[in-house]
């Protein structure tokens, strides 16, 4: 596989996050605010944004925002297929494709979620899976779907239950120390975690991601232009999306049922970047549920079923001392959940050096999209322009 052209960079970030049901504006208004914030962060005028990319069935058609943003010339308007968070990293691939091919210059990757407007996310995600056979088994929610796979991960593949707990603890450790996190100032007591109500086995309440209202926006432009803007550029080092053979079966006959679906995507990502898991300094991991986060680390080659108990340990997962710091803002579990856009934001914050839980000298950050989705995606962001 040929190398990915490292010629685009994230130059602006905007996030507006609220408790679910507490957004002060309708969904599009919240999103426009986040995009304007990202432009201010970058030192760009909102009218200069000429491309828009989203994922996860976002309802905000770019042209409808053009009047609010003063869009000069809408050149690129695209969305990654799939209802879950599997497309979050792929969205950067679409944005880079537009920039590298000259179809747009300044592209915003966004996701907005105000469920009072756009409806329940879990229902929208599950609509991509449902058929009568699945529903007649009571499998009507992403939590149930993922719990089935998690049970296989624990019972058949012998992944220690403690690994799930440690990922959750690490997320809350970071969230408790991040003023922008919903869980800021609130460490998660292990007894509270273990005694929290059961949702569907093996998931307790705290194994499940939050849901927040809000919007996130990240502006991508050419590396050349990025050097003249306000912020330290964070380069897109590589990105891959899709699924390998044997994944995405409608009746859930996936060949490797307990995986997160990343095996082929990770293989292509490492090939195109020339990196290996050992080169990754910090990971931003979409965790819809704890087990899927652990499965994602396995799929990307950070560990195996045999070594997961050694690698996925609380002490190893926390910044700054751990060797594999994961979800340094708190992730979907503890920072907040606007369908995963927050983990992309933290990837950039970490490489800018502005994370609340910085990893000293971090050069490469993996962004792993929604695990277990029918199509998934991953990306590497880097401080290095080549």
């Amino acid at each position, binding site marked *: 596989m040929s190398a990915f052209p490292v010629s685009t960079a994230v130059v602006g970030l905007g996030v507006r996050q609220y408790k679910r049901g507490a957004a002060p504006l309708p969904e599009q208004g919240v999103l426009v605010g986040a995009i304007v914030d990202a432009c201010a962060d970058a030192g760009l005028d909102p009218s200069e944004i000429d491309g828009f990319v989203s994922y996860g069935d976002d309802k905000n058609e770019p042209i409808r925002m053009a009047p609010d943003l003063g869009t000069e010339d809408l050149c690129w308007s695209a969305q990654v297929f799939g209802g879950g968070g599997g497309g979050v990293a792929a969205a950067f691939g679409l944005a880079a494709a537009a920039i590298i091919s000259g179809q747009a210059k300044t592209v915003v990757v966004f996701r907005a979620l105000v469920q009072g407007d756009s409806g329940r996310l879990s229902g929208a995600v599950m609509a991509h899976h449902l058929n009568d056979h699945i*529903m007649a088994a*009571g499998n*009507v929610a992403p939590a149930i779907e993922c719990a*089935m796979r998690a049970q296989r991960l624990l019972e058949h593949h012998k992944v220690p239950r403690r690994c799930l707990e440690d990922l959750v603890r690490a997320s809350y450790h970071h969230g408790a120390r991040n003023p922008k996190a919903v869980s800021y100032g609130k460490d998660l007591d292990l007894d509270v975690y273990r005694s929290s*109500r059961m949702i*569907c086995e093996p998931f307790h309440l705290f194994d499940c991601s939050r849901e927040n209202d809000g919007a996130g926006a990240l502006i991508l432009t050419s590396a050349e232009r990025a050097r003249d803007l306000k912020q330290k550029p964070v380069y897109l080092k590589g990105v891959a999306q899709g699924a390998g053979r044997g994944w995405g079966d409608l009746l859930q*006959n996936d060949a490797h049922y307990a995986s997160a679906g990343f095996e082929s995507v990770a293989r292509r990502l490492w090939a195109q970047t020339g990196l290996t898991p050992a080169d990754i300094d910090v990971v931003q991991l979409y965790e819809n549920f704890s087990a899927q986060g652990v499965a994602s680390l396995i799929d990307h080659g950070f560990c195996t079923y045999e070594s997961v108990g050694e690698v996925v340990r609380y002490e190893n997962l926390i910044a700054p001392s751990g060797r594999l710091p994961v979800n340094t803002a708190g992730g979907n579990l503890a920072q907040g959940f606007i369908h995963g856009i927050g983990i992309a934001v933290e990837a950039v914050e970490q490489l800018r050096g502005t994370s609340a839980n910085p990893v000293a000298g971090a050069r490469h950050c993996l962004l792993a999209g929604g695990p277990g989705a029918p199509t998934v995606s991953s990306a590497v962001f880097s401080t290095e322009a080549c």
Partner: protein
Amino acid sequence: MRGVIYSWTRTWHPFEGTEAFGSPFVTLSVTLPEAGDIRLMGVLDGEGEPIIGAPVVGHVAEAEVYGRVIPGLRWAVTA
């Protein structure tokens, strides 16, 4: 119809649409050795504990989901 439990979950949260299943209820994924190891889903009936690898026997029944009655499989653990 005979099979082997491939995976399972016991659902405690009252997810919308599952009211008629009772609480908790167990969802199974079942491997069918007599059909090339394809897997079908269904609900566990009876007192048997769901354990991966346990033999089960299944039949076609009905399920009520979101107030709609549809055909579905029900399984029971065999000794």
